[in-house]
C-alpha cells in the first residue's frame, strides 16, 4: 500500500534529531510537526520571521501579528525568537537550518527540483522555496511518486522550470525513500507492501536497487 500523507509525514519525522532546527514547507511537510518523536527538542523555523513555532492558538490566544509561512495563525513556544525576513533568510541561506522538508512537482537524478511553476498555468511565485533549496544541505523532498495517470515524477531530467539545480539528496514519496547520488535514485526503503517492481515501473529516472530493500518501519 502506498503511504498516506500522514504516514509519509510520520516517516520523515524519524529523520529528526534532538536539537535540530527544522524548516517545514507547506502541505505534507507541515504535517511532520505532528510526529516529532516524544522527548525530542526540535525548533521549527518559519521563514516569515519566527524560530520556535508552536501549535495553532485557541480562540482566546489568537494573534493577527503571529502567523506562519502559510499565513495561518500560530503560537510561539518558550525559547522562541522573532526577527526580520532578512535575518530569517540569513539562517536559511547561511546553512544554519539542520533539516528542510519541502514538496515538489518533479525531481531528477541530478538532484534538481521543480516545484514552483507550471508553464501555461497560473504562476503564483516561488516564495522562499528557491532560497531553501539553495541554502540547506540536509533537505528531504516529500512528494507523490507518480501523478494520477501513473506518470513518474522522478525523472532523468526535470521538465518544468527549476526551483534549484543539483541540490536535493533525499526524496520521500508515497512508495519509497530514496537517496540521489552519482546521477541516480538509490532505493533505500519501500513503503510496506509496495514491491520493488512497482517502484521501478514508476521511476522514470535511473534507479539503483540494492539486493535487499527493507520496508519502512513506523
Amino acid at each position, binding site marked *: 500500500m502506498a503511504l498516506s500523507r500522514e504516514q509519509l509525514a510520520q516517516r520523515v519525522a524519524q529523520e529528526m534529531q534532538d536539537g535540530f532546527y527544522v524548516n517545514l514547507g507547506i502541505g505534507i511537510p507541515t504535517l511532520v510537526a505532528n510526529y516529532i518523536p516524544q522527548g525530542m527538542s526540535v525548533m521549527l523555523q518559519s521563514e516569515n520571521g519566527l524560530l520556535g513555532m508552536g501549535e495553532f492558538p485557541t480562540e482566546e490566544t489568537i494573534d493577527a501579528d503571529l502567523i506562519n509561512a502559510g*499565513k495561518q495563525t500560530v503560537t510561539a513556544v518558550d525559547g522562541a525568537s522573532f526577527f526580520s525576513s*532578512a535575518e530569517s533568510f540569513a539562517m536559511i541561506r547561511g546553512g544554519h537550518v539542520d533539516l528542510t522538508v519541502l514538496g515538489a512537482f518533479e525531481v531528477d537524478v541530478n538532484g534538481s527540483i521543480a516545484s514552483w511553476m507550471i508553464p501555461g498555468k497560473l504562476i503564483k511565485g516561488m516564495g522562499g522555496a528557491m532560497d531553501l533549496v539553495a541554502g540547506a544541505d540536509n533537505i528531504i523532498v516529500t512528494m507523490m511518486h507518480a501523478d494520477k495517470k501513473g506518470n513518474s515524477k522522478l525523472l532523468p531530467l526535470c521538465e518544468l522550470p527549476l526551483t534549484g539545480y543539483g541540490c536535493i539528496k533525499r526524496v520521500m514519496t508515497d512508495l519509497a525513500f530514496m537517496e540521489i547520488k552519482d546521477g541516480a535514485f538509490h532505493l533505500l526503503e519501500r513503503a510496506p507492501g509496495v514491491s520493488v517492481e512497482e517502484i521501478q515501473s514508476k521511476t522514470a529516472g535511473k534507479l539503483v536497487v540494492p539486493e535487499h530493500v527493507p520496508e519502512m518501519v513506523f
Partner: protein
Amino acid sequence: MAGLNKVVQSYEEALQGLTNDMTIMVGGFGLCGIPEGLINHMVKMGVSGLTAISNNAGVDDFGLGLLLKQRQIATMIASYVGENATFEQQMLSGELNVILTPQGTLAEKIRAGGAGIPAFFTATGYGTPIADGKETREIKGRHYVLEDSLTSDFALVRAWKADTMGNLIFRKTAANFNPMMATAGKITVVEAEEIVQPGELDPNHIHTPGIYVDRVIQASFEKRIEQRTVKPTDAVAK
C-alpha cells in the same frame, strides 16, 4: 515637523511628495504587518504607475489588492502572489508587469539597498529561470547569481511602537520586511500603533534606529487575518 520630531498628524502630510510613477516599498507578509492606513490613503490619492515592492500583493479587498483594483500599480516586485484574483487577471492580460523574486533574495536586495551595497552574489536561483540574463560566477566551487539591490522613493512601514524620533520596535511576525524597508526608502514613513516620547523605549530593545525614519504617524489597525487557524477542540483537551 521640527528638528528630530518626525510625527505627522495627517496621512496627507505622511505621504506628501508621493507622485505617479514612483517606486514604493510596502512592508508586510501576507496581510500581517502591512501599513494599512498608508495603503488606504494611496488609494484616495489616486497615484498611479507605481512600482510596488512587497513580498505579496494583498487580497482582493485589503492591502495592496486595493491599489491593484484601481490599477495604480504598473510593476509589482514580489515573491508570492497567490491570494489575489485581481492580480492574476491583470498579470495574465499583461496590464501588470510582475517581477517574481525569491523571498530571501528580495529581503537581501532591500537590506543591501539600505546598506549601500549595489549588488551581491547568491546561490539562490542558480540554474533556474530567475538567473536568466544575470551574471553568474563560480566562487570556491559553487555557482552564484549576481542580484542588484533595491531602493525606493517611499518606504511604507508598519511598526508596533515608535518614539517621536522614529526609533522603532516591531511586534512578533509583523516585523517581516518592515525593518529592511525602513532603511531603503529615500523617504521612510512609519505607521505605528503607538507613539511615545524619546526615552520611553529602552535603547536596548530598538529594532530600527530613528536615523532611517523620516515621518511617523499614529494609527489603529484592522489587522485582518488571512488564514484563521485554531486548535481543534479535542486537541485543547489533550
